[in-house]
């Protein structure tokens, strides 16, 4: 495990050959001279395997100190990926977030072997559930809750669909929580479960929930997608489920895949076949436990006739 290395030895490797973080679908080699990056790796990835010298990483990233004065005063860190990319320097205190963002950039732009959904993905009973959504609509909180109640985490950010196998592929990384959801998850899991809070980041206050050990251990195991569920936290709705009408579900699903147009006919056919025989739905809830229950039911039993019949109606209580 990476945690078996002393901090000094980890830093030495980061400064020379780099350290490989294997998240399943991809392996990223990290280079850095910034001590806070070593700290971030130990706290978020300490329980990941230490890869040997024969490992070929998919991506190489660097986290360099800020230039000029910022090497010494109000220290900064800036990500790099070998080609021009829009990374600007940030305070070194948020190094863990820079690590995640830089790795995310590589996945988002270079893993076109997969159909990439902006979504959380988790698995239970051998079936994967895909939870698409932008930040701020409750997806990450729900993902964290599911990941800590019996669901195996694949990813909180990028759902990777393998067109060759028709299955989802894990890309196991820490779950990022923002602002209010940090308090919610701390209440559920206890204070020690999350990393320290990072303040004043571009996304507000951020904390990380390290990926559960079982998720890391099983990061190479794919699972077929069983349902696509768009989650909406809504303070006034106790529980509501609406199916998408089939064609609309298909176009919505395709719209949620970042590289859908790139992958062309193969992606269209795969999504068409999926939508034809699997639920694509929206759910609204005001309690996490209700959401967990709904997700589990939809994945195992599908949608009720009523939920399908009312597909055209607005998502209200």
């Amino acid at each position, binding site marked *: 495990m990476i945690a078996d290395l002393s901090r000094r030895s980890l830093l030495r490797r980061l400064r020379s050959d780099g350290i490989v973080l294997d998240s399943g679908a991809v392996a990223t080699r990290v280079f850095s001279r910034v001590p806070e990056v070593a700290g971030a790796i130990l706290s978020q990835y300490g329980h990941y395997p230490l890869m040997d010298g024969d490992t070929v990483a998919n991506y190489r990233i660097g986290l360099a100190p800020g230039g000029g004065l910022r090497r010494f005063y109000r220290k900064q860190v800036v990500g790099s990926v070998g080609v021009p990319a829009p990374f600007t320097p940030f305070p070194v205190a948020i190094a863990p977030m820079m690590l995640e963002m830089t790795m995310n950039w590589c996945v988002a732009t270079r893993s076109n072997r997969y159909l990439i959904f902006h979504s959380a993905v988790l698995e239970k009973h051998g079936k994967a559930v895909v939870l698409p959504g932008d930040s701020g609509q409750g997806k990450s909180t729900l993902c964290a809750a599911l990941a800590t109640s019996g669901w195996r985490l694949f990813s909180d950010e990028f759902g990777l669909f393998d067109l060759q196998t028709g299955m989802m592929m894990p890309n196991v990384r820490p779950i990022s929580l923002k602002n209010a959801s940090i308090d919610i998850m701390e209440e559920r899991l206890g204070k020690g479960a999350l990393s320290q809070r990072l303040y004043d980041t571009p996304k507000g206050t951020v904390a990380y929930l390290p990926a559960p050990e079982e998720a890391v251990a099983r990061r190479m195991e794919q699972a077929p997608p069983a349902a696509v569920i768009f989650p909406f936290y809504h303070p006034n709705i106790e529980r509501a489920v609406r199916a998408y009408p*089939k064609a609309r579900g*298909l176009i919505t699903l395709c719209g949620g895949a970042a590289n859908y147009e790139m992958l062309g*006919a193969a992606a269209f056919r795969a999504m068409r076949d999926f*939508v034809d025989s699997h639920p694509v739905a929206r759910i609204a809830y005001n309690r996490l436990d209700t959401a967990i229950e709904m997700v589990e039911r939809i994945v195992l039993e599908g949608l009720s006739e009523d939920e399908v019949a009312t597909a055209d109606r607005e998502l209200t209580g």
Partner: protein
Amino acid sequence: MIRWCVPQDRELLWYEREGEAVVFNSASGRSHYLNALINEMLRYIEEAPRSAADIHGHLAGLMDGAEPDNFADRIGDILGSLALQGLIDPCRE
């Protein structure tokens, strides 16, 4: 008179359910959501080159006299959109 067609090089892949459709244009790589009216129009043009008048007549027949106002104009607009998206081209005679 312009006739519209779906050219030979333009393989369209379809998904039609419950009166709605998604069509994938393999030449442009784009996917489009179509309501029932546009779905029918595009399928009709896919069968053979059609003029706007042909299309108007065909759709009017399906609607049993329940034509919307300014139907000809609407059809013209839709044809323009379909052409812009490269789903149909003006055909050489």
